[in-house]
């Protein structure tokens, strides 16, 4: 990717995000936050790349830390969002 292409992609994605979410019902404020937070754990891709590159001991240690923290973010975020949403929906049935 050329830098300008990367910036274009960034700008378009920000606009898409802003336009896509207009009104969020208050019930969903917390799940939206924890769910989107889990998505921001996409940095895990970067952590995996860094961990797999096996460049030097220093970068391997840093990458290990990155994989652990990013995975906490991803797994924890999606799971807790799932728990919350399950709570909302089970209530509707009863």
């Amino acid at each position: 990717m050329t830098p300008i292409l990367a910036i274009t992609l960034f700008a378009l994605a920000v606009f898409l995000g802003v336009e896509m979410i207009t009104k969020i019902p208050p019930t969903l404020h917390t799940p939206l936050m924890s769910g989107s937070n889990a998505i921001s754990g996409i940095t895990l891709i970067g952590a995996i790349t860094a961990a797999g590159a096996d460049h030097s001991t220093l970068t391997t240690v840093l990458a290990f830390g990155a994989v652990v923290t990013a995975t906490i973010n991803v797994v924890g975020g999606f799971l807790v969002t799932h728990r919350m949403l399950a709570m909302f929906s089970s209530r509707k049935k009863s």
Partner: protein
Amino acid sequence: MSTDLIQAGYLVASILFVLGIKNLSHPRTASRGNALGSTGMAVAVVVTIADRSLVSYTTLAAGLVVGAGIGAVLALRVQMTGMPQLVGLFNGSGGAASALVGIASLITAADNATDTTQLTVGAASTIAIGSATFSGSTIAVAKLSEKLNRVRHGYWARILTALAAAATVSLSVAIVLDPGTRLWGWLLIGTGIVLGAAIVAPIGGADMPVVVALLNSLSGLAAAGTGFVLDNPVLIVAGSLVGASGLILTGIMCRAMNRTLTHVLFAEMTSHQTDNDDDIYAGRVTSSSADEVAMMLDGAQLVAFVPGYGMAVAQAQHAVRDLCQQLQTSGTEVVFAIHPVAGRMPGHMNVLLAEAEVPYEQLIEMEEINPRFRQVDVAVVIGANDVVNPSAQNDPDSPIAGMPILDAHNARTVVVIKRSLSPGFAGIANPLFAADNTVMLFGDGREAVSDITRSLRETTR
């Protein structure tokens, strides 16, 4: 795997993230949104692991197992009361991950002489934003779990913020000009950490919903930064989507408090009214008992509960649910009036009451309930303070002037369940407590509510 195939995999993941976030913002599709988002993540991870440019899998596997274990335990064991802290913690770990990826990639690229300007600019932003998100979230978590009070030395925190910001910018420039010197990267992590901590430390508890939402947005931007570092579109797309949605949530929270983001982050809340608490309360506060409140509730047609963070602290949501069911069995209509910033996190009250199995239909938003308060026989304020303070409407000099509030004072009778007359987060007195139609029930929220329920059961028998 061929490059095209890998890129196609990332495209699929990006689309799944877009659909995931879109679905998460609608009640009916929220569960699907979460499923789509996690599928997108799985696709992206599998594609990356299958990429043959990886040479070692040991570190990777160990990291994944440890991280997944910790994340799963935290997510499955958390009480809904502890949700703000957990979301804060996840934000912080995402920020830390991005900062670590940034510095590891910068070192690798400098050693291999593959450091382009895009890479160094991306790495500098990621390291700065990531470490500030990490420290800011850590401070926020400490505040949310009551381990750290509001830092009173706001003035020094501002100076520290300015110094750290200047140092962060200078070091970022240094990295771009001279990527080979590792010291700049390490120092940038340090100043980023100081910057995040100095910004969040002086912010009061009432503003935590804004801070948590903002940190959520920043963790997304840090992830987008790693996309520039690795030249990977899926990171840019996912990161900026989260950055945007977090920013929208931040805006919603600010509007609910009638404040601007700069005001939340950088303005002192002046509480010049604290010295005349006695003038407001003296001789005008009516104290009541659980039995008396039970009698008031017994004859009521419409009862509105107004929950606040105090309900969460007292773990009173289940007791409130019991009282609510008791009232309904005797034909009283019960609603919950939810202020958008009640609690310490966007949507906090909804999550708590959902845990206590209060039906969704009974939770009424501010705009909808306010015109109905005149028909409410008894408004039960439990653990809320500033969000029902009429000064926001009547007193132009009040620090919270103009903040939208729940019009609980319009109810025929107001019962305030509270430990004492101490002020809320804004640090100001609440004339509602001294109003003619208000009675105070002093005590622990959960015990007080259970006492009312018991008393009500005895009288109906």
